[in-house]
């Protein structure tokens, strides 16, 4: 364990907490902070391609408004929790500012007439939206390579992928463009890129954060969540965006704001379950090493490590790659060139259907077409029971595995959280898996089950792979019972008060 220092006491100046505090103390104006962010994005983005748009003018207007509000309130006023904090929004989350492209030709000129609920809540809490970030088209992919605007590159090694689908959000925060970003996670799309870029990211419990304004991919799996350097930076963003929304019929009506102060409670006596499946021989050697080191750190912090079993974990990817494409094929049926998005040219006398087909064929990239076709197949007459219903039954078994791990009944493991890797390997090379979709799908082995079960999952930086030429971050993952976000953040924060992986930069 390298020289630590309590992160909550002296975070690096690029951390969300440090930026927020420097503004609150009057050391920096919002305009200075936002100007810095715009300068870093403008000079850095040509290398990483993390952003689809830099909203420089809009952000400067907002910064001036916030500074003016600040001076009229006076120095003693209590500021909203994200006052002046620059934030980057994944470009499948609707913003009134700029366009919402989903990194797709289908929506390259789409302007949303409203803000997603998550974005509106960030703005209400004082955040400044400075950019939209690149992604795998419609959030389908785990590498950031399937974007109509070109691949995102990993700031730790520009020849490698940052992970996906929230590729740009992860790369942007890792590169220091902004202290935090929103992503979305359908099968690991926050946790996997956070892991490969050395960040902390959380996929909340299904229903915890409103999906209103998140462009739908797989509606029973999608969640919006924050990514930042450390758990203590993620917490205020999650607090801002979560809570019931009458505009989303799957929004949970649970107590929302929980208080970042809960993070500082020690984890002595907490039970962490390590699934036998996480000690897989398929893991990269560095991932296995970091898992064991992480276990040792938690033991030293007073946690009890419990061996558990998730016997149906192996079915996760298979069930996911039936259910998610099925829902995608249905959700993406709306892109027909009629009401919004791309419309292909048709010649006089051609039928309406030619316009649908040509608009969709021109508008969707290969990975999206593949998934729509896969979903269409598993839902089609004669195949529905064999594929789709089978996958939904397997989904319940996967959920029961987690329920059992968390159960406090006599003889049950009764763990507070499950600990396992976020990914089986560190960032791979650009192009390495692009022609073999199945090999890319297998990278999701540790993340998809959490979405199928609807549980919260957090990934956090836990070490580095130093076997190659570049130092590459490795992330571990914590999974909790429904509504267990604050326990996960607390466990990660306690880990981060003993380690400094989250304070490393490319």
């Amino acid at each position: 364990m390298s020289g630590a220092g309590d992160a909550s006491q002296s975070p690096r100046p690029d951390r969300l907490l440090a930026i927020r505090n420097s503004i609150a103390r009057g050391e920096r104006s919002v305009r200075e902070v936002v100007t810095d962010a715009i300068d870093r994005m403008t000079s850095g983005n040509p290398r990483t391609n993390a952003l689809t748009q830099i909203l420089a003018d809009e952000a400067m207007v907002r910064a001036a408004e916030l500074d003016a509000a600040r001076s009229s309130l006076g120095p003693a006023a209590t500021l909203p929790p994200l006052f002046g904090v620059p934030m980057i929004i994944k470009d499948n989350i609707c913003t009134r500012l700029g366009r919402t492209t989903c990194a797709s030709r289908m929506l390259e000129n789409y302007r949303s007439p409203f803000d997603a609920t998550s974005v509106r809540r960030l703005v209400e809490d004082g955040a400044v939206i400075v950019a939209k970030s690149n992604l795998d088209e419609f959030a389908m992919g785990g590498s950031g390579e399937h974007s109509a605007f070109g691949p995102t590159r990993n700031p730790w090694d520009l020849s490698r992928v940052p992970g996906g689908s929230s590729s740009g959000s992860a790369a942007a925060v890792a590169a220091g463009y902004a202290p935090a970003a929103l992503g979305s996670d359908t099968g690991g799309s926050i946790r996997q890129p956070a892991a490969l870029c050395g960040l902390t990211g959380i996929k909340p419990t299904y229903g915890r954060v409103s999906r209103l304004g998140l462009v739908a991919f797989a509606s029973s799996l999608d969640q919006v969540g924050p990514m930042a350097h450390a758990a203590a930076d993620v917490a205020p963003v999650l607090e801002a965006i979560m809570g019931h929304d009458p505009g989303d019929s799957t929004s949970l009506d649970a107590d929302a704001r929980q208080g970042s102060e809960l993070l500082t409670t020690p984890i002595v006596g907490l039970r962490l379950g390590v699934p036998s499946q996480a000690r897989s021989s398929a893991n990269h050697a560095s991932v296995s090493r970091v898992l064991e080191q992480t276990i040792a750190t938690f033991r030293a912090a007073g946690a009890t490590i419990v061996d558990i079993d998730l016997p149906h974990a192996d079915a996760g990817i298979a069930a996911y790659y039936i259910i998610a494409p099925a829902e995608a094929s249905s959700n993406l049926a709306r892109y027909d060139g009629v009401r919004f998005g791309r419309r292909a040219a048709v010649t006089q006398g051609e039928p309406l259907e030619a316009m649908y087909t040509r608009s969709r064929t021109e508008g969707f990239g290969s990975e999206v077409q593949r998934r729509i076709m896969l979903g269409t197949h598993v839902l089609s007459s004669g195949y529905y029971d064999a594929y789709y219903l089978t996958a939904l039954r397997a989904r319940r078994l996967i959920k029961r595995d987690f329920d059992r791990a968390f159960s406090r009944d006599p003889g049950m493991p009764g763990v507070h959280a499950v600990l396992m890797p976020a990914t089986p390997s560190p960032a791979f090379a650009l192009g390495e898996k692009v022609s073999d979709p199945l090999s890319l799908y297998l990278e999701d082995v540790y993340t998809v089950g959490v979405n199928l079960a609807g549980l919260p999952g957090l990934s956090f930086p836990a070490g580095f792979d130093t076997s190659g030429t570049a130092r590459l971050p490795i992330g571990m993952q914590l999974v909790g019972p429904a509504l267990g976000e604050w326990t996960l953040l607390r466990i990660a924060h306690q880990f981060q008060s003993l380690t400094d992986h989250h304070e490393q930069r490319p």
Partner: protein
Amino acid sequence: MAQDLSRQHVERIARLARLDPGPEKLAVYQGQLSAVLKYVERLEALDLDGVEPMASPMDRAGAMRADSPGATLSPADLIAMAPAHFESFVRVPKVLGDGGGA
């Protein structure tokens, strides 16, 4: 479950999905989709007797909100998103007649 997708079946799926990627891409998809379907065959080994399908992580169906009027998007906002419009109508190619697709 098993069996590779035939060319004819892949063409049918594409047609159902209103996609026309062309013969070369379709051949690539055929191989890639067959590999994925072969992989998901492992679900057949599970004992799923009596297991209820789980379509959503939520126990209850979608919640209803009060049926009361509130702010909505304006017709102008909505029509502005359409690729082509005439006054307050979305304009589309002819639906009926001329051997059209109705």
